[in-house]
């Protein structure tokens, strides 16, 4: 028995496998839901209505999808070049805190049109720096970046925690550890009134298209793809491997930092240590679901956000334990990964 790459994928296969995957995941989750004593089909219905049943829930799902698109792109871009950036979470927080601090202290009072782009640059730059350090260690000393980027997540999170309980602490927050609020002019305009949905979603989608264009149409894109697929072949063809990786790291770290920036400017307005429910890590799953395709990332992020919001709503409204919601999310992501795999490979015996 072996796996063989499919050369042609039929439309039926591409459409049917993800649907089957969701059905399979829900079927397994159904066992747990039934064990918890809740009516299974009603619970399924709740997943759907909690994610898309009302204007509020639909905008909430889309709000959740925005940072996931960006962290998903961060992972996809890096993985394409075989730079294993597991540090999206840390880059996300560093981007968020850098933007929040810059807005409260450096750029306070600047008009929105000037301040927001400046904050984007600051946040992206912070994420970039956090990834360039592990890359330098890899290029200089061959230190495995999986380990360094992963561990830097904790360093970054604790660093942020120190700042918001120290120099950046909001004096008006009744002792809660949170950063000072960003300048009012730095808040992202809403996409829809009376919702949390902000222009971050549009920015993320535009960036996804931009990256797709860069990867498929530019010299840098072709070279970085070659470097990822076959490093020694790329060297033979004259691709500057080190330089390519540095640029890839800047894009990847920058995107994760930008995700944090947009989240803090668009949703909360200040930084706490629960700003991200694991957006950095989920971005890795999103990237894998999308098979590292930037446009696929948008769809994969939507699916992931749907499962997050839907399963959460299901457990709340049905009164079943929240861990069942977590299991449902995990099951759906796992089965979707398997489905993505089988749209590309077949079993041959």
């Amino acid at each position, binding site marked *: 028995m072996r796996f063989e790459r499919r050369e042609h994928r039929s439309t039926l296969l591409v459409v049917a496998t993800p649907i089957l995957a969701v059905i399979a995941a829900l079927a397994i989750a159904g066992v747990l839901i039934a064990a918890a004593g809740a009516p299974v089909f009603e619970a399924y219905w709740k997943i759907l209505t909690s994610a898309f049943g009302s204007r509020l829930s639909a905008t909430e799902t889309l709000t959740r999808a925005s940072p996931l698109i960006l962290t998903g792109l961060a992972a996809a871009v890096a993985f394409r070049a075989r730079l294993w950036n597991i540090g999206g979470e840390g880059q996300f927080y560093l981007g968020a805190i850098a933007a929040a601090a810059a807005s409260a202290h450096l750029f306070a009072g600047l008009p929105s049109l000037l301040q927001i782009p400046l904050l984007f640059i600051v946040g992206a730059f912070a994420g970039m720096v956090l990834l360039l350090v592990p890359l330098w260690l890899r290029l200089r000393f061959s230190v495995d970046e999986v380990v360094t980027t992963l561990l830097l997540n904790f360093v970054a999170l604790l660093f942020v925690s120190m700042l918001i309980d120290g120099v950046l602490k909001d004096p008006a927050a009744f002792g809660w550890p949170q950063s000072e609020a960003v300048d009012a002019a730095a808040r992202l305009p809403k996409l829809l009134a009376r919702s949390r949905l902000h222009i971050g979603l549009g920015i993320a989608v535009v960036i996804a298209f931009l990256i797709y264009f860069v990867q498929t149409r*530019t*010299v840098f894109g072709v*070279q970085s793809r*070659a470097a990822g697929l*076959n490093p020694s*072949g790329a060297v*033979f*063809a*004259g691709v500057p491997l080190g330089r390519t990786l540095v640029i890839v790291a800047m894009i990847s770290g920058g995107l994760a930092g930008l995700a944090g920036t947009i989240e803090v400017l668009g949703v909360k307005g200040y930084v706490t240590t629960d700003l991200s429910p694991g957006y950095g890590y989920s971005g890795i799953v999103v990237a894998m679901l999308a098979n590292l395709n930037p446009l696929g990332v948008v769809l994969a992020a939507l699916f992931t956000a749907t499962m997050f919001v839907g399963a959460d709503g299901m457990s709340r409204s049905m009164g079943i334990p929240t861990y069942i919601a977590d299991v449902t999310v995990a099951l759906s992501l796992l089965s979707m990964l398997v489905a993505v795999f089988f749209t590309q490979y077949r079993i*041959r015996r």
Partner: protein
Amino acid sequence: MTDTVLDIKNVSKSFGDNLANDDISLSLAKGEIVALLGENGAGKTTLMSILFGHYVPDTGSVSVMGQALPAGKPRAAISAGVGMVHQHFSLAPNLTVLENVMTGTESLWSIGSNVSAGRKKLLDISQRFGLKVDPDARLGDLSVGEQQRVEILKALYNDARILVLDEPTAVLTKLEAETLFSTLKDMARQGLSLIFISHKLDEVMATADRIVVLRGGRQVAERKVGETSKAELAELMVGRKVTRPVREASTPGEIVLEAAGITVRSGGVDRLKSVDFRLRAGEVLGIIGVSGNGQAVLAQLLSGTIGRSAGDLVLFGKGVGDLTVADAVSCGIGRIPEDRNRDGVIGEMAIWENAVLERLPEFSKAGLVDRKAGIAFATRIIEGFDVRGGSPTSRIRLLSGGNMQKLILGRNLIERPKILLAAQPARGLDEGAVAAVHERILEARKAGTAVLLISEDLDEVMALADRIQAIVGGRLSPSVNAEHVDAQRLGLMMAGEWGGASDAV
């Protein structure tokens, strides 16, 4: 035949529309060596995968020692006494020889591993068949030839009575191959039966008792070794007469590339030691040597992927510093890498992308790749160099080795390079593709290209080169005129005995 140990009857197997095996029957007697001869893609490996239980045949049956073998069960094949030596070894480099050999032979549920019994058995086998190994050596530290020996030992350790070797010499040097052949003959004398998959005529003629020829999934002929010839086999295998091209006399022109005292040091070792050569327009200079003697480093240096530690490189009459890949490509050096899968192509990228990757600046404007021009370029190569099996936008991995090599040749030769650097250009290719590659190289020579041919294949170098230099331990011999040497003399040169070689520049 009295002692039939293996009987493959009417086996067919298709993958989609592709009929890989069409009604093939093959039997094997005790103590017999049968060669399965065919070009790449003729269905040899598929047939053996069916025998070994990796594939389930669509029709037909396999029986060993008179017992039918259940289809699709590798374990049943092993316990029936079928052993397989794969082209790409299935060994773990981080384990010792003994550990590799014993892996899979003991139950997962047994508490301890009976290492001392295993060691004894291994040493017994190794002595009986004259396959010397150190049981405690780490596999990764062994040479490729030794690793193959371990793979054979592993099969014998599993009490194989039938041994299948899939292109066993593809990775070996000439000397290692000779040793392997005498071992195989010895094993046959001791009662083992062997199937030997190959597309190399010399080997087949030297080793086998009987030869079965496959072409396009069908069994086209079966010959006793004494009743056939290389020429007949070549024709049977390819399906038409194949003639390797012949080099015509010519007068070489200007010196285009000159190396003086070039040394390359890496990891504290001199990989190239004060190497001198001159290359003229319109000639082929053959660098011959057993692999691992520095020819790979020489190729890398001239390809622009590594720098030198000392010495001068003169290109078109001007001294140059360290070449980069971009320099090499832009000043008209065509490069054919030794390992086309590792260095020559990016398997998952499209054919057109592989065609233009090393010359992206020519195929882009303001950082944007000109896809149309790239596809047009690839189409020109595909048409001009008879590359079959893919369109410009299909992934290059889908091409056969020969067609991939034709594409690599094409992307270098289509722009008429002044220098062509060809490292092992015909390695692993079947007879038809070798002839095509040689023809292109001789065409380039005729058109005035200076060719540096690095090869370990004596026949190839003698057929193509005007002058020959041997490389041994990083040193390059003086050059000899190809008209005045024979294989024996070259053999001596490759062994480092180049005493009174005459410089014929």
